[in-house]
């Protein structure tokens, strides 16, 4: 009987820990997403627009961009080091240089990448 009570208590403690960890993870992921949005608006939206649609044939779209879907690991490096030369995104050729972002930390770039992937490149788009 005592053993059973102890087991129930143990389960309760374990469950509470699990819930609090999940809450913490959720809060952290929300904070990252907000930070990603704030950084995107400040650093990227001027050219690529808040809705990721890009602008005419000057700045490529990020929303449903086949280039990024086909090269999922490229985004971090493009944001960090910039990009020169011509690329084709969704059938349109773009050639304007994208500047590097030496002031952004790797963590900040991670948050932007996460935001872009969730907002513009997930299959639900």
């Amino acid at each position: 009987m005592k053993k059973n009570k102890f087991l129930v208590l143990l389960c309760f403690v374990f469950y509470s820990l699990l819930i609090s960890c999940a809450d913490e993870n959720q809060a952290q992921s929300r904070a990252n997403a907000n930070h990603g949005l704030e950084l995107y608006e400040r650093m990227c939206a001027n050219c690529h627009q808040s809705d990721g649609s890009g602008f005419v044939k000057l700045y490529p779209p990020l929303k449903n961009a086949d280039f990024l879907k086909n090269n999922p690991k490229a985004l971090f490096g493009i944001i960090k080091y910039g990009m020169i030369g011509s690329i084709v995104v969704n059938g349109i050729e773009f050639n304007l240089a994208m500047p590097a972002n030496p002031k952004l930390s790797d963590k900040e770039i991670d948050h932007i990448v996460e935001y872009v992937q969730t907002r513009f490149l997930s299959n639900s788009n």
Partner: protein
Amino acid sequence: MKNKISILSLLFVFMACGENKLPIYGDRKVEMKTIDGKQVADTIYQSVPDFEFTNQDGKLINQNIVKDKIYVADFFFVTCPTICPRMKKNLLKVYETFKDNPEIMFMSHTIDPEHDSVSVLHDFASRLGADSKQWQFLTGDREKIYELAEHGYYATAIADSLEPGGYVHSGGLILVDKKRRVRGVYDGTVESATSQLILDITTLLHEKE
């Protein structure tokens, strides 16, 4: 009925008196002239000085291209990552509103002529969808561009290597009338300001000489 007519006629008088006039920017001086033997005061307004630059097609362009035209001037550079993309997006709306109107021109001057060569400007203009008959992208001697920006159009275009893109510039869209007088300066990064620019161009189009 009589009352209605009086109210209507009063309204017309008010509308005529309240004709929307845009301000004229810059210095002015009064000169006395003799017309038909009478001394008459004539106000001389400051106007944009003569200029000569090369456009996106490699043609030399001077003030004659805006003769008897209303135009919008701005200063930008192709690799600008900050305010220029927003300015160009808003300016494109203005351009599309008055597209093919022979009385309206657009004059975009690069403030980075070392990078923004004729071919770079040509590529930029065509990607933007701008027709060189109505929208000039101009390059030339750096000093002359900055001089025109500061003293001709009241925009600040001062080199500053600390700013993103290497330059500070005002983001202003400058409205110039048919007599080359500045009639308005609008924040090209703000959508509502460019909507006002569209309204003011329409006002200028209807302005009597």
